[in-house]
């Protein structure tokens, strides 16, 4: 009925609506200056609020096993009884060898594996009937050399044809740099135990790496023949890898809960089914609770969920490897680390049974894990949000830059101030136009429509492109200099970040000495292009690494609202100086220093880790920082700085 009515005769509401639209069109100052600001601000506020609403019951979902073939916890695990005697035997053997070697070669490296222990692993695997091979590797990053030797053994699937495989990894040094003696021993015992079973449909590879950072990376690269020169190729291979589980057990006492680590390099995540399987087996079958994101006490409240999600987002955003499993993710191999935590009643055999049950589940797979989500945020061991629900948050924040960029672009071709006039004349005109009646403005607009000002784009385009390319300089520097210079380089960059915008602003205001002085339209165009690129990059990034896009988006949020200031000189100087100081607090190096100060980690450690990530893991967080964030920030500073000159 209402529809009919609207069509038939216009109601007062629709009249009001048209009137409002007409008013808007007749008020370009509001349309091009105020409205974009309001929209952009709303985007940011809604984006942040959206994220904060995610942990609510209505916005998140309970996890579930999507892949039917996995059947977690449906099999009886037989890893008990006398297998524990063998576990103790292997452990004693390795412990003795480690102690002997330590005595002979000083006690400099407590957690390093010794060659004798390494050889023992080799011989135990061989005695258990596995095909064993070794691989030496060496990486150099930031002047530090990392080298080691991987040992791996393959159980051939009894009736298999070497087309698929599962990997079990035990690193001698855990992700927290502890000696993983019991983890290695457990893997050895499992290798001997698994060999007896004939039900494996996939090969099982047992990989022993000297540490959790380099070993798996070298191995997985070589497995796909994509390794650098300094890494040896693998002499022995199997089929396509379907999944990987990393075993850690770096202490002597019994444990209470399992901590599941799942973050990969560059924020890639394993299929949610793998995580769910681990939770279902640990919790449902074995009666061991599962933790994630170092949330030891999780009461499933809003705060706890939000905190878990934020920790996950921080790790995802920074994009570093959180354990030996992380290196598998870029090759589309789903992997997790199982870490026993706390003091309780569960012993190594319970962990062994969990792993046995996981291997049985993975063994059931008919296809590569693909059913469940690859993009998700976990907030509890059985609660998550998927990409469809959380993505709008980062997209809105990225969208605010695009809205502003489009508005600025339109403003340069529409608003009277874009006319190549002197700033003073333009200002008075704009003031006048806002004061005078609607008719007069209509006239002015008509005049403008007939003679649209030409956009002078050469300088803005060159400047924006140039500054983005300039980002390659810090990118190269922070990835290639020696680690002892990292702190100095950071401080140098703080200074550069203060000086460079002012220098550029002065240069632009004085016309670079060669051309005519830069006009206001060009300032707007520079800002428009910079924001356009930022919005484009961040919205693309949001689909790949949501958290990184969100963090950078928030840090860049002020850039939408700052520009060249006008007004009395004293006020201008004051505000722009204050603005520059505040903006400098948000510059990449200062943010880095601030975070380091807050967390108590040295700048050198963080940057060494970052350079290592770039060199070894293929981490590209730095690219986003130096080629997306830094240029956008720099242009914002130049805009603000130009008010001074």
């Amino acid at each position, binding site marked *: 009925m209402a529809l009919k009515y609207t069509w038939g005769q216009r109601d007062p509401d629709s009249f009001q609506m048209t009137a409002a639209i007409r008013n808007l069109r007749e008020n370009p100052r509001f349309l091009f200056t105020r409205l974009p600001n309001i929209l952009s601000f709303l985007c940011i506020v809604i984006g942040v609020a959206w994220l904060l609403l995610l942990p609510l019951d209505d916005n998140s979902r309970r996890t579930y096993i999507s892949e039917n073939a996995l059947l977690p916890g449906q099999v009886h695990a037989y890893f008990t009884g006398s297998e524990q005697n063998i576990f103790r035997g292997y452990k004693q053997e390795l412990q003795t060898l480690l102690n002997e070697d330590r005595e002979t070669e000083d006690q400099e490296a407590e957690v390093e594996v010794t060659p004798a222990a390494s050889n023992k692993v080799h011989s135990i695997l061989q005695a258990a009937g596995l095909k064993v091979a070794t691989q030496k590797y060496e990486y150099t990053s930031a002047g530090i050399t990392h080298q080691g030797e991987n040992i791996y053994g393959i159980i051939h699937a009894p009736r298999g044809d070497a087309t698929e495989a599962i990997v079990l990894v035990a690193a001698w040094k855990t992700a927290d740099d502890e000696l993983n003696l019991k983890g290695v021993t457990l893997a050895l015992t499992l290798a001997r135990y698994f060999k007896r079973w004939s039900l494996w449909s996939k090969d099982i590879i047992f990989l022993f790496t000297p540490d959790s950072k380099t070993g798996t990376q070298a191995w997985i690269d070589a497995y796909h*023949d994509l390794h650098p020169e300094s890494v040896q190729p693998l002499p022995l291979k199997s089929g396509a890898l379907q999944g990987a589980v990393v075993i850690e057990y770096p202490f002597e006492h019994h444990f209470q809960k399992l901590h599941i680590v799942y973050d990969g390099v560059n924020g890639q995540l394993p299929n949610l089914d793998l995580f769910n399987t681990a939770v279902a087996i640990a919790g449902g079958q074995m009666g061991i609770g599962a933790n994630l994101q170092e949330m030891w006490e999780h009461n499933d409240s809003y705060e706890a969920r939000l905190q878990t999600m934020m920790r996950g987002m921080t790790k995802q955003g920074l994009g570093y490897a959180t354990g030996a499993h992380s290196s598998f993710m870029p090759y589309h191999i789903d992997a997790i680390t199982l870490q026993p935590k706390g003091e309780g009643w569960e012993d190594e055999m319970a962990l062994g049974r969990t792993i046995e049950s996981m291997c049985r589940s993975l063994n059931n797979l008919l296809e*590569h894990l693909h059913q469940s989500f690859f993009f998700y945020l976990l907030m509890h061991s059985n609660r998550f949000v998927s990409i469809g629900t959380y993505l709008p948050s980062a997209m809105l924040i990225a969208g605010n830059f695009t809205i502003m960029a489009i508005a600025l672009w339109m403003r340069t071709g529409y608003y009277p101030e874009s006319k190549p006039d002197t700033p003073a004349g333009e200002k008075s005109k704009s003031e006048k136009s806002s004061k005078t009646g609607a008719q007069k403005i209509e006239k002015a607009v008509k005049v403008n429509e007939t003679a649209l000002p030409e956009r002078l784009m050469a300088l803005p385009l060159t400047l924006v492109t140039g500054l983005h390319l300039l980002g390659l300089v810090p990118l190269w520097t922070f990835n290639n200099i020696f680690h002892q210079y990292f702190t100095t380089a950071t401080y140098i960059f703080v200074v550069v970040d203060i000086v460079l915008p002012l220098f550029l602003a002065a240069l632009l205001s004085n016309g670079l000495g060669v051309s005519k002085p830069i006009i206001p339209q060009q300032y707007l165009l520079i800002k428009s292009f910079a924001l356009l690129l930022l919005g484009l990059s961040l919205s693309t990034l949001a689909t790949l690494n949501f958290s990184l896009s969100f963090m950078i988006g928030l840090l860049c949020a002020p850039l939408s609202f700052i520009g060249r200031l006008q007004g009395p000189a004293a006020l201008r100087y004051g505000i722009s100086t204050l603005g520059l100081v505040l903006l400098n607090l948000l510059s990449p190096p200062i943010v880095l220093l601030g975070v380091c100060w807050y967390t108590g980690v040295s700048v050198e450690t963080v940057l060494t880790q970052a350079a290592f990530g770039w060199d070894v893991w293929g981490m590209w967080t730095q690219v986003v920082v130096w080629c997306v964030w830094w240029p956008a920030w720099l242009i914002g500073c130049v805009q603000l700085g130009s008010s001074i000159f």
Partner: protein
Amino acid sequence: MTTFGFLSLLLALAVTLWSSYASASSDYHEQLFLQPLPQSSLLASFNFRSNTSQQAFDNQHFRYFPRALGQILQHAHTKELHLRFTTGRWDAESWGPRPWGGSKEGGTGVELWAWIDAPDDDEAFGKWIALTQSLSGLFCASLNFVDSTRTTRPVVSFEPTGDHQDVDGLHLLHGTLPGEVVCTENLTPFLKLLPCKGKAGISTLFDGHKLFDAAWQSMSVDMRPICTSDGDCVVQIEQTIDMVLDVERSKRPRSNPIPRPLSNELLACDTSKPYNSEDTCFPLEKGADAAWSISEVFGRTLTGVCPLTGSDGTQEHSVCLRVPHEKQVFITEGSTEIKKEDGFTRCFDPAPVQPFDLSIPEQTVDIPVPREEPILYAERTIVGHGQERGGMRIIFGNPSNTTAVDFILFESLPWFLRPYIHTLQATITGRDGIPTEIAASDLVTSTFYRPAIDRERGTQLEIALSVPAASTVTLTYDFEKAILRYTEYPPDANRGFNVAPAVIRILNVENSAPVYIRSTSLLLPLPTPDFSMPYNVIILTSTVIALAFGTVFNILVRRVVSVDEAAALGAQSLKGRLLGKLVAIRDRFRSKETKVE
């Protein structure tokens, strides 16, 4: 009594006549060869061979030759046939060279090649399709999926093993199904081809549960004509089953197949360790070969001898065992043991009707059976990652310190794997472990390459190579993955596409028997659309259509009327009118009755 005596006499006569005829024109042999292998494995090699004269074969006088197969071969004009069913992989590093020099073995899955008599290629292909379709039915295998994309015509990799009069008129066709799972449904038809059909002789040992629990097993059927110099031809059919059993696994009783942890007392521990105690045990891996017997490993005993076994004087024993002569072997009473001169082989003749068993207790001997080294090691894997491109890496290892190995590498690749032959590269690694990159042309002596045509035929690549002594050659080439149409994906769970194993034929072997090696098959992941999405869409639209159709149909067909209208409506039809009349008549009678009362 007399009738029985007469019958038995007749039977005896028939048997005598028949056996004399058999020895003249056809014969049948079967042999089981057992060889313990390292890592407590046992190689069991079954061989069944029979000859039929060409004349009898042509006249469809099938005696030992299975009629079902014979008629198929005649219908498809197949002169020589080789069919292989294989699962698992041969572990050359531990087990040494393959049985029969690899010539009775196929790649993983099913492999078939045949020489077909036809005037031209098209007709040969037509007959080949007829052959694969018929064999598919006979062996319960998906051989009917060997279409033009899976058929190749190898040029140098295979040569006929039989004696053919007109070799030029024969066409060799070769097809593989690497994804085929070989199982009991293939074993049953295989056994039915045997003259004794698994009822007597060595074929009684075939138990699907044990055979398909083997670490590696291969079934083969070979048919070929053999001619003597004076022109007498026989058609020979040879069936073999080779398998490697894990002794420990096979010995587990069927009632308790789960390898539970042993009880503490049964653990073999290294007592020399200082920490050895009741709850700590460093396991002692067994030095001696495990004890086994035929009844334990195969789950049953050998029942007698197949009575059709040839009596043409050749000394072939039905069971042979390759262990050192010092080793103690116990056999069932009534059977005879013959030790061969080489010091490692002994053969047994089981008694005709008794069950035969053979057992070897656990023992260590001073002189083990000499371990032979394979002529060549080969390994093939897919490298690289991603949905678009990949690479193939083939490693050849020559263990010999003195002689180079010449061989032919035969690859038949599916069309959706497009190799870039120009990227063919070779790396040679000596014993010192330093790799040197060399031009592939330095190793490759000749190449035969037939590029693929999309959806019509696959790539065929035959490369003649030579690997120098004491070195390892790594051959690599890149390939591109094609994007399939969504209907081209098989309806099964999508684990990837199987790429057929490479066949390697070794050339410089002195004796006449050809030596073959097959690599493992490969799994090629292709870009896969999200199949569940169309599925969901179909389900949703179907539901919507069903609902809409149901409602609309109901509205169109059903008429909603009140109760009194319904009676009137019913009255209009013929049936209604008739019913109305009947009711009226009945009412009349009833009213009369009531009146009477």
